[in-house]
């Protein structure tokens, strides 16, 4: 469960202060598929960084599975990321010249899991993400955009995280591939009960989630459809 209370983040550049988050509070339950939506400069990236344990808030609390993550040190945050969070990025961020399998294994390497077990787990999550076994030993730069993002999703799944954070996962994909990727997220959410937070600036992408949180100028906005919206569902 994610519990965020009065989260604030201020950036300082010289004498100029910039308040990226000005007191955000919300709760996301296990198994939810939530979209955080907002225009650029709204603070959604800052919120994503804090939710992803990449950064500390200036003030406020962030409880992830009952643990306060807001005041942890760099190395403690690294442990949280390793154990509880899976990232999917807009620009994929796979290691080039490295096989698909090795890319998915990578998070387990930092977890010190032995080679045999991690290979099995990586293969399992690649299949869950919908990638054919025939591509496992391909180099990551030999795949298409949709396939690459599926590998990235498999990598985000492999450490069995409490939360999958997807930052504009379809930003670099065409609309057809986007639908496939979003369908994959929905499947992971519905069939495996994964908690997913999708960050986007596009309404129709956000509508794939069960719930949308709107953010603008560092504050959550109350909008008509933000509590419950009938999510668009696609068949894979």
């Amino acid at each position: 469960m994610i519990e965020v209370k009065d989260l604030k983040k201020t950036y300082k550049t010289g004498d100029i202060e910039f308040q990226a988050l000005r007191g955000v509070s919300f709760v996301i339950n296990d198994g939810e598929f939530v979209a955080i939506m907002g225009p650029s400069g709204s603070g959604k990236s800052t919120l994503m960084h804090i939710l992803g344990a990449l950064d500390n808030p200036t003030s406020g609390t962030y409880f992830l599975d009952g643990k306060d993550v807001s005041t942890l040190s760099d190395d403690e945050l690294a442990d949280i990321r390793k154990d509880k969070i899976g990232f999917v990025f807009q620009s994929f961020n796979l290691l080039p010249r490295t096989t698909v399998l090795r890319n998915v294994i990578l998070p387990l390497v930092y977890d010190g899991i032995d080679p045999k077990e991690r290979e099995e787990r990586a293969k399992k999550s690649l299949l869950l993400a919908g990638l054919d076994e025939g591509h496992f030993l391909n180099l990551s730069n030999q795949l298409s955009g949709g396939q690459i993002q599926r590998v990235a999703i498999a990598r985000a799944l492999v450490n069995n995280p409490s939360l999958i954070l997807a930052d504009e996962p379809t930003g670099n994909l065409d609309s057809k591939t986007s639908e496939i990727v979003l369908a994959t997220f929905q499947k992971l959410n519905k069939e495996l009960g994964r908690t997913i937070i999708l960050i986007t600036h596009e309404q129709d992408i956000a509508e794939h989630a069960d719930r949308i949180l709107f953010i603008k100028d560092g504050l959550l906005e109350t909008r008509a459809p933000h509590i419950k919206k009938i999510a668009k569902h696609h068949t894979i």
Partner: protein
Amino acid sequence: MKNSDLLHETYSALSANKARSGLTMLGIIIGIASVIAMTAIGQGAQNSVSSSIQSMGANLVMIMPGAARSFGGPSAGRGGAQSLTVTDADAIASQVSNVSGVAREVTSRQQIIATGTNTNTSITGTEPSYLGIRNVAIDEGNFISDQDVVNGTKVAVLGPTTRDDLFGVGATGVVGQKIRIKGMEYSIIGITVAKGGSGFSNADDMIYIPYTTAQRYLTGNKYLGEIDIQTASSDVSTQVQDDITTLLLTRHNITDPTKIDFNVLNQASIIATASSVTSTFTTLLAAVAGISLVVGGIGIMNMMLTTVTERTREIGLRKAIGAKRKDINKQFLVEAIMLTFIGGVIGVILGWLISFGVTSLGILQASVSVSSIILAFCVSAAIGIIFGYYPARRASRLSPIDALRYE
């Protein structure tokens, strides 16, 4: 992160850009190879100098007439001063302990005439004990006998080079032939075994005659040009040297040691002086080679800094999926160490090949020491750590957010 994973990551990172890794390694290879080769050549020079001094004879103490001088300094002309006598040599033999042999020497340089040819060479007037003390062996015929010394007979033993000069290279049947020195005829009774040109004084280009004969016909006086003493062991050479100095000072009635009219040289101290010269030379060579090693290390640092910048996104990703600072630090440090280590191994092999080449070309007997190999390895690993530390630290300090955003 397990060590096997660390090696896997390092291997794939280094092999991703083989040309750059190879060129960077080249700096270390050249540095290490030159350190190994230079110290091997320096060590070889040192060995050759001390072995050429050793070849003059084992446990040797030499007494020469003339004012005291340091080794290698200006000489008053060896044999030129007249202060050592035959009775000085007798007194040393009977009164100084730990003396196992005494050879009197009278030296002179003369024009030698054989039938139709002539040469200019050193003539050493000496006695039978010279053979053992100076490590000279007879190849053909005999050396000077005690009888020859007593009678002052005109017999000569030739060094192989002198024989070649007078009778042609490798000439046989030379024993029994005659040569003329200063108008007198000498019969050849023997040829010595070649010792190899030793640089100092070539023992092969030499004619030996009895010292009594040399005194009578060549120098015309009762003085000696040199007395060679063999000590019982190398440990007592200093004691023998001191005792001889005391004895001769008394015999020559000298009370003021600054007015000393002879000079006692100890082979051990000559070797020590000569090796200190060659080891300075070795250090100099190694220092020059060391500079190239440092330049190679800077090359490593340069490459690692470029790599860190290029792989900023990768570092960000690794951090996002749970890599700690120390994981990133270790990864980049191991990359740098691996570069220098592989460079070090190739450098050692190359340095060894250079030394082998120098030896087989006959320039010098270069000797690669184990200590220089161990040192080279330690230095190359240390260079990896020193020059890899800063780039690795920079990589590990990158914030995952900035690193992921980096284009």
